[in-house]
């Protein structure tokens, strides 16, 4: 029983990381209509910046905050100078551009900081705490809590602020929004910036566990995309819940289903997808999208 609870808590933690990435992907997709395959890569770059700062005696929390801010700027710059050209065209071409960006970022990190695994300082102590007779990792709880708080803040931004209203309007109908004076281009940059910042948070939290390397979030990206497929591109809540389910199930499957084990954990989300999608092609929460010719 204790093991089960541990696995669930740890699964919730990794699921939160996937969820953050998935949410970033959904955010970018709603704003600019494309899937950013470099979302994880951008987050890893932020983690490298954090790591580099801590190596130069910057306290960890400050380093993380700085890298979040820099990530925001980076995301905005990428939208304006790289992706803008491809946003109104074929989404498949835009995806290839993001794949190019991923290669570029991974290559950059590998060139500057080598492909070796680097030790990344942990924001949370590595102890466990005893709760109802079960020992639970503090890091897992902390990671989950921080990411959930970040998501709640993001949600509050979208629903309660003027900026959030503007972001939503631009995502729905950019041309109509422009008629009301909304600066569409600048708002798209903000959208990308927020997505990148969210990724930076997730990367800083998961790096101690995975160890820092340029390809650190490649696997996580796969999980995040699975969560997006399951949850539906139109449902932020859906993808987060799907991500948690994936995180928990893969942990449980790794231990309790002997064929899968730890190395084939990554197959779990896709088994899930095949099963769910045969019944509901639009995902668990998504709406069937209507496309006009």
């Amino acid at each position, binding site marked *: 029983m204790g093991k089960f609870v541990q696995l669930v808590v740890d699964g919730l933690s990794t699921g939160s990381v996937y969820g953050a990435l998935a949410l970033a992907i959904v955010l970018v997709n709603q704003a600019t209509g494309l899937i950013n395959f470099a979302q994880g890569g951008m987050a890893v770059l932020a983690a490298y910046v954090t790591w580099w700062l801590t190596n130069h005696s910057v306290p960890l929390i400050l380093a993380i905050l700085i890298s979040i801010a820099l990530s925001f700027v980076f995301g905005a710059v990428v939208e304006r100078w*790289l992706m803008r050209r491809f946003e109104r065209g074929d989404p*498949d071409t835009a995806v*290839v551009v993001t794949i*190019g960006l991923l290669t*570029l*970022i991974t290559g950059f990190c590998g060139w500057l900081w080598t492909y070796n695994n680097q030790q990344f300082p942990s924001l949370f102590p590595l102890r466990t705490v005893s709760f109802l007779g079960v020992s639970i990792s503090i890091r897992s709880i902390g990671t989950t809590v921080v990411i959930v708080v970040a998501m709640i803040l993001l949600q509050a931004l979208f629903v309660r602020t003027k900026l959030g209203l503007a972001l939503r309007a631009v995502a729905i109908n950019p041309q109509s929004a422009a008629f009301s004076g909304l600066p569409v281009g600048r708002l798209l940059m903000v959208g990308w910036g927020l997505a990148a910042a969210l990724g930076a948070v997730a990367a800083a939290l998961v790096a101690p566990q995975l160890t820092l390397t340029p390809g650190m979030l490649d*696997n996580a990206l796969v999980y995040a995309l699975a969560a997006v497929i399951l949850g539906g591109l139109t449902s932020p809540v859906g993808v987060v819940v799907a991500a948690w389910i994936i995180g928990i199930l893969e942990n449980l499957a790794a231990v309790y289903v002997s064929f899968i084990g730890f190395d084939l954990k*990554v197959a779990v989300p896709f088994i899930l997808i095949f099963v769910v999608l045969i019944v509901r092609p639009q995902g668990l929460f998504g709406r069937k999208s209507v496309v006009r*010719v």
Partner: protein
Amino acid sequence: MARGMTSPASPVWQRPWARWAGWLLLVVVLAVVPLVMTEFANETLARIGVYAVAVLGLNVVMGYAGQVSLGQIFFLGLGAYITAYGVQEEWNIVLVFVLACLIPAVVGLLVALAAARLGGLAIAMVTIALPIVGVPLAKRLSDFTGGSQGMSARFADAPEGSGLFDDQWVLYVVLIIGGIVFLLTRNLVRGKYGRAFAIVKGNENVASSMGISPYRYKVLAFTIASLIGGVSGFLYMAVIQYTSPETMSFGHSIQLVAAMVIGGAASIVGSLLGGAYYVLVPQLTNLVDPSLTALLQGALLLVVLFVLPGGLVSLPRALTRGRRRSRAGRGPVAPPTTPSTTTGSGTAAEEPETERQGHA
């Protein structure tokens, strides 16, 4: 350009006899090349051939049918593993080849049946799982795959009486099998299936309103791509004689997509260029600075997408268009006729300087 029709004004290279002569010349060159080049050159050409076939397969589903697929390398790896296993078990080589075609095709079919239902970029999102799940799976099923160590298999040694060296024989095998695949694919994409793919790629709703089921054609394209991927895997084993889980890694998957785009999407010749890119460029960048390889490749992919989206194969076209433009001394090509005026006054009224803007 109508085939078989000549007009007095058509240039030399478009006349039918010229095209037959061109094909004949190509066949002669391909037959002679392995005999005159060095061993290293032959081996390099053979590798280019392997990846050209793989890129060709990717082009079918991604270039022509417009579905981003990150799983092509998986089918190459699968074909290679099937080949290696079959050779080790000493099965008939023809049977091995057939299996290397069929099994990846079936797997591809199953994946596509599920993924294509989702629409949008789902095929991209699902196919990313193939290399990522494929690598640990290959390590795990060590009875079939030799685990992390991989498997070696030699089966393409030159036959006793042929008088050929091994590298020459292998190159011939690649040229013949690859050539057949290229020809068949060329016919496919120039025929009605190719046209259907193009319509599905352009606008799925238009396609279904024309009675062309996007789902069916996406599945077809993906299955063909997987089959061709399997063939490339067979050739891979013939040339490289060793495969391991690393063969189908995520990094290689991305490199294949990059190679396709840089060579030229939706282009037969572009696939050849893509294969050449895949093999040659890493060798070049390694000479400059090995740790810079991924960075340069990413940058190159982005540059191509910005400046030359049709890939290297579209370079000649882009250059002639540029030259024509500068000769005309004006902006982009515009229809020469000005709109007819309805006033019909016929007087030599000064044409107002209407600027031509808003070009598609």
